[in-house]
């Protein structure tokens, strides 16, 4: 596997993980506020 492809996979996985963490911290709170708003 070329280095650029390994880097691409790692960074996309990190991006997806960051999104998942961000959604779990802030996403639910926003949905809850919206539901009550």
């Amino acid at each position: 596997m070329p280095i650029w492809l390994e880097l691409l996979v790692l960074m996309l996985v990190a991006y997806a993980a960051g999104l998942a963490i961000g959604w779990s911290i802030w996403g639910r709170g926003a949905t809850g506020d919206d539901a009550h708003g």
Partner: protein
Amino acid sequence: MVVPRSPYLALGLGAALVAVLALAGGRLSGPDLAAKLESRAAAVIAKTGGAPVRAHFATARGSPSRHPVLAGGERLDVGTRDRVARAVAAIPGVGGIRWSDGTALAQGAATPVEPLHCQEDVEALLRSRTIRFEEGSARIDAASRELVDEVASALRPCLGSIIAITGHTDASGPEPGNLALSRERAEAVEAALVARGIPADGLRTSGLGSRTPVKGLEATDPANRRIEFSVIATQPIRPTPVDTPGPR
């Protein structure tokens, strides 16, 4: 700054940005990283005694990679190949090792065939015992039949190789007679082995009379009367196209 309304568009743009950064980073740093790994691998290979081996940190298309292909180790033994592969794999940052002539294992693609161990096994059998013949005759002595059984068992793993059976005599008596007797005795041993399941087309017989006495012995020493076995050609069994399953 333009703020996308659709969250999916934002996510897509974010992924695209990550991809562009990854590609740029890979293209810029890849060749440098591969060159550093190659020089470290060369040093490690020289240290482990795998001198002809070279590590190529590149894919088949030439892109820099941290997974090396090791080449030049075709003539090395399995132990050295294993040592070299482990040493290169231990370098920090190196990924999976592959040999150019085989798999990730130390062995090459071809199955190693070692027919000479049969010769060694037979020589070990005949070191302390001799196939005896009746006086002046090519008839194998009854007491030697068990030894011939053991020789046949030792030769069985070498089926597919050509085995030479050479008869020798001592220097007593006329040489033409010795030549004929040594050849007849070799043929008698061949017949005995064929009767025990060794294929005849893998056996070659010859008689050398008293021409090649045992090193260190006088030509007239009775210990020169002997039968010698040697593997003179190797024919490893390879699968034919019929053996390989085709597509369904």
